[in-house]
């Protein structure tokens, strides 16, 4: 499979474009740099610095060495939060990827109604996570929700009150929100597969299932890596949805890393340990995206990973 129409290095600037007088253009990047450094790069360095301090969010910031790290790394809450984060990440990948590929391949067909379908599919992506969480909280309420109203026993569970059910609900709601986006990505990927490959396969007498597994799926490899990276890294940052839907409960059943950070920092006023968790969040995200890039063939081609 050498013909990979998907990989062209657009992320990096073309080397050697136009002459030397472009040095004068650098100032055009200054405003963007100021904003990005001031509120992106400096906070990232700041979170490292703050993880070696003690601060309650209001008073003075005191240097305290590795105290915060020691507190975080010995706290049984951390492995639990990591476990919940990975569980939700893995389950949402397992649900979203096959469903998005299936829908993406389907939507890539040219019939008119499919275009209408993709317009409707996209609506959940327009709602804020807070709005979605509020809706599902009302919808799943055991006393006032849809199940109770329809008097269907199976739907009238204490959905958010039992650990296993609460995790499943989070995975379902996340999938409900993001499958449309990923199927759109796959739809774009399928559109780029050259027709000639299918023609050749047809001449060889391949059926549609054979064609799907021998052409469509391998050709979608890079799309799959892009989409999986977004699923995996994105699921590290489910904060608002879980915060509004379950607030981490019942107990600590859905207390993911991002929520753990917020609760320690802004509710327990332990900004030092919270910063340490924030850094763990960054490291886990970087490690996972590098790992996925490796899986994608080990090429150091950033343009694939970064998507656009």
């Amino acid at each position: 499979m050498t013909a990979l129409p998907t990989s062209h290095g657009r992320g990096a600037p073309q080397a050697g474009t136009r002459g030397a007088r472009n040095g004068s253009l650098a100032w055009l990047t200054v405003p963007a740099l100021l904003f990005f450094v001031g509120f992106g790069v400096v906070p990232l360095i700041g979170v490292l610095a703050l993880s070696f301090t003690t601060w309650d969010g209001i008073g003075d910031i005191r240097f305290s060495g590795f105290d915060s790290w020691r507190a975080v790394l010995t706290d049984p809450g951390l492995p639990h939060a990591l476990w919940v984060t990975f569980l939700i990440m893995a389950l949402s990948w397992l649900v979203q990827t096959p469903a998005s590929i299936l829908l993406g391949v389907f939507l890539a067909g040219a019939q008119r109604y499919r275009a209408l379908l993709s317009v409707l599919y996209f609506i959940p992506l327009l709602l804020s996570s807070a709005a979605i969480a509020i809706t599902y909280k009302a919808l799943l309420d055991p006393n006032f929700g849809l199940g109770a109203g329809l008097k269907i026993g199976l739907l009238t569970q204490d959905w958010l009150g039992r650990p296993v059910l609460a995790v499943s609900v989070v995975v379902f709601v996340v999938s409900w929100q993001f499958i449309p986006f990923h199927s759109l990505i796959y739809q774009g990927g399928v559109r780029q597969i050259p027709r000639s490959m299918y023609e050749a396969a047809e001449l060889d007498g391949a059926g549609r299932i054979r064609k799907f597994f021998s052409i469509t799926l391998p050709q979608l490899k890079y799309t799959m890596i892009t989409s999986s990276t977004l699923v995996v890294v994105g699921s590290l940052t489910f904060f608002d949805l879980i915060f509004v839907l379950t607030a981490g409960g019942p107990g600590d059943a859905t207390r993911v890393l991002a929520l753990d950070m917020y609760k320690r920092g802004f509710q327990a006023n332990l900004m030092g340990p919270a910063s340490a968790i924030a850094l763990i969040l960054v490291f886990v995200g970087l490690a996972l995206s590098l790992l996925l890039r490796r899986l994608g063939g080990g090429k150091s081609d950033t343009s694939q990973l970064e998507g656009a």
Partner: protein
Amino acid sequence: MGTTLTTRPARTRAQQPRHERRVVARHWNWLGGVSGWLWLVIVVVPIYWIVITSFKTQSNYYATNPLVPPGEPTLASYRMVIESDFVQYFVNSLIVTIGAVVPAVTVSFMAAFAIVRGGSGRFLRSVNSLFLMGLAIPLQATVIPIYLIIIRLHLYDTLLAMILPSIAFAIPLSVLVLSNFIRDVPKELFESMRLDGATEWGTLWRLAFPLSRPAVVTVTIYNALTIWNNFLLPLILTQSPDKRTLPLALWSFQGQYSINVPAVLASVVLTTLPILTLYVVGRRQLLSGLMAGFGK
């Protein structure tokens, strides 16, 4: 509106290479078809439920079948939501969104133009790499220092506190999408502008900007959507009710009136309407932009 919704995308499809049509449509893809319609039901039922329930009265809601539309639709819930300072939150959201999107897209466009036109310089190459790396920074991980910076700037509990970080986090993806688009502008056009004696600044606004309109629209809508829906920044950077933006207001409203399901859902509808309008207007550009952007 119904007709434009259905026919517009079909027309774009028709202009695209026709090849997949035969491949995909020759045999009915029953597995895809079944899941396609099934997913439609999964997406539409909750949305349908939100809309019809928001027109019910509270007492009516408990008495009727939740999936049957109300016999006598009422706007009582909407009136109640609007009277609970909804207009204030709406205006706050509007100020934060416009106040962040316009500068973010403007500075990103300038940076993207410089990166494409002067991309061989070492400085501009490192700027580009910095923004690419920025794509990997999650907002969540930086909120504590952002909170500290905002306090030190004496901006806590202001709308500007939410605007500044929102601009910063919109820049990396915007620069990436815009520079990919500007790169496709034929070099000859830039060259002829230069021969006509135009400055780079003039070329930027008179040539590159108009030609990049599709990408600018995509980036604008995408950023507006993200910033309009942001929940974390208002949560940590404001405390007075009159500084709340809509997602945060929704949350506190739900905490207050959780028993009144129709009112809660009416607030969900009202919050989503503006973004839905934007979607209807810019849908084609947004969908094709995102598809082209990620579907490689």
